């Protein structure tokens, strides 16, 4: 793809931000225990990390980096069979860089997770989340670990890969749903523009496939840009691990069938 067109597309897509508010699908089960539990663990881990690492006396970015590095997903280490190995895929999924990172991920998890858990049941939802996390890690390791030696040592953290999988599972299950979405405009700090979000006053009932495909296509464009940059510069300076998003989404979309509760097939839900 023409790099200029790619950048234009990315800037354009980056400026539109969709915030899901609600959908119309009635819940068949009761409380989504697994979604709430995963959310709770993420929050607790973040609080614990905040107090033991970020807010320690004399804490610096370097010290925090050193403290958390072994628990983050480092493609080179995984490929070399060093560090925590596959366990780092799991630990990194419960670490978040800051409060905004945590809140954004947890909001999406709560919105989509509950609905997907409704069709999988709690235990299977937990397994699906785990599976998507590993899928995200796998794709991230393959791309980041093999394309550029420098990027192979940049650690990844956050639950977004697994959550992208849950969102993709939602798309697979409820593609006929509409999501009430608050459309926002935002600048792209990654592109040197000052970061801000400007919500538009019009909430829209978007088809779920529009909402979700927009997110995945944006990630795909970013991934394409990364590959172009690697070709030209040998490194890609992205703050967002889009490969993990795409890997998680692929896992959720392609493998949700294996995690559906039998009630779905018995016509009880």
């Amino acid at each position, binding site marked *: 793809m023409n790099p200029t067109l790619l950048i234009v597309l990315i800037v354009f897509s980056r400026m539109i931000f969709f915030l899901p508010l609600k959908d119309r699908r009635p819940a068949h089960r009761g409380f989504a225990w697994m979604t709430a539990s995963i959310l709770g663990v993420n929050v607790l881990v973040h609080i614990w990390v905040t107090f033991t690492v970020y807010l320690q006396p004399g804490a610096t970015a*370097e010290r925090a*980096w*050193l403290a958390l*590095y*072994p628990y983050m997903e480092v493609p080179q*280490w*995984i*490929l*070399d*069979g*060093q*560090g*925590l*190995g*596959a*366990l780092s*895929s*799991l630990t990194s999924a419960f670490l978040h860089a800051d409060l905004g990172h945590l809140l954004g991920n947890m909001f999406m998890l709560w919105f989509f997770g509950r609905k997907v858990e409704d069709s999988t049941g709690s235990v*299977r939802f937990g*397994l*699906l989340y*785990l*599976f998507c996390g*590993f*899928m995200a*890690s*796998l794709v991230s*390791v*393959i791309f980041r670990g093999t394309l550029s030696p420098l990027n192979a*040592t940049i650690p990844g953290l956050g639950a977004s890969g697994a959550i992208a999988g849950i969102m993709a599972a939602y798309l697979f299950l409820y593609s006929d749903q509409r999501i009430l979405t608050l459309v926002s405009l935002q600048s792209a700090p990654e592109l040197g523009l000052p970061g801000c979000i400007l919500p538009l006053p019009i909430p829209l009932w978007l088809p779920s496939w529009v909402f979700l495909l927009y997110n995945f296509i944006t990630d795909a464009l970013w991934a394409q840009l990364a590959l172009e940059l690697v070709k030209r510069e040998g490194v890609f300076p992205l703050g967002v691990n889009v490969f993990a998003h795409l890997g998680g989404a692929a896992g959720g979309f392609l*493998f949700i*069938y*294996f*995690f559906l509760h*039998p*009630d779905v*097939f*018995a016509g*009880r839900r």
Partner: protein
Amino acid sequence: MQRSEVQALLREGIAAAKAGQKKTDPTEARQKRIYRIDTDRIKHREHARDLLTQVVELDETNVIAWLWLSTVMDDLAEKRLCLENVLVLDPDNKPAQSGLAQLARQAAAAPAKPELDPSPVAEAGLADHTVQTSNNETPCLFCQQPISIMDTTCGHCQLPLVVECPNCKTTTDIEHLHCSNCSWSIGDYRERPTYFAGLARAYQADENHRRALETWQFVEILDPDYPDLYVHMGRAQAALGYSQKAIDNLKRLLQEGPTNLAVYLALGNIYQETRRWRSAEATYREALQMFPTTAQAHFALGWLLMEIQRPQDALPYIRKATQLDPQHGMAWYRLAQLYEMSRQRGAATQAYKKAAALLSEESLAAQKSHERLGMLEPYLPKRLATGWMELTRQSLGPILICVLAALLDAGLRPWWISWIGWGALLLSIVGAFLWISGTTLPQNPVIKILVGEQGLASSELQVGVAFFGGMCWLLAMLIILLPIGQSIPEIPL
């Protein structure tokens, strides 16, 4: 105020006064003998006093109002005043004259009578001045003896002339086929014992046992040989707490002629309700000896044995009850419970289905049957529940997680996976299979090959297998994920 309004007020006052009287029927004729039965006559009297006082304030010359007011006054002096007013207006008024004479006798003989005693005016026969004619007697509908039209019960045969509607609790004349208040079908009094038996059953269904017992006593007056009369009376007595009295009556009946199964069942039931288990069991066993081919006797004994935690002993009796009477819904329900207790899932399912089909949809047992069926029946259609496809589908998810983890742990090189890792993967397959077999596919093809056609039949076994499988899978994940022997390289800054 219009004259018609005064008349309406008067009518209302008279009705309230009638309601406040103890044994006086209040209307002009029995056909109109409709008033709300009162549990608190004082309230009626007070209300009547208010209304009638208003009438005489509006119309001082209203003789009827003065007469009725005298019946609801508590104080003798006030009663006298009212009656004297009547005589001022109508010097020849006989009820007022006799009422005054009665008052004079009372005053001379004793202190004032209790509040709810019949007033001297009523006793003197002037309670209903509007119908105060020579014709104030009528033959009893049952015994044809002459009674006052005011009577609610015949003094000769002791049968009632008004009944309480089981539905709305208002009293209705016995000649009415339907309740005058709510139109509930009361029945035809000419059917005599059947009429009262129907009413008594309705009272019993409404748990108005006192009224039921009283009504069964009317049946006894009319027909002491009415079928199961004493059984019903015994039940009503027991419900009222007179269990021993009921037991004595039923025992006496059995001594007189032990030919009635219902008597045995009622007696056993009372023993059962009063937790006299041995006596209940002995009674039911005696009933079974006398009536060995009746489903009710088998069911009663079986249910008693279930209640005293002897399900193994109960099973043959309940099963026999369903054989003797295949339409006995409750017997099927209890049989299903027994099968479920003995972990015979398939048989329990069948029995619950029968019970659900036979019992009334509104009954608790039918609802419970549906509930249990939902739990017992397999999650999936048989094709899926017993097929390879669903087993593979459900197993693959948890297995793939372990495979991915193992692959990541081996640096994406399968040949780096150690023999412990391969063992863990194998363990994860076993764990996933057992977990699925114990949770949603207890009759999957592998389980059928391993343990037979019935699969994992009991719920305890399923829980155990599922738990063990889950633990195996977790252990496999732990083995794969634990970074044993892996070094932490230098962290790049």
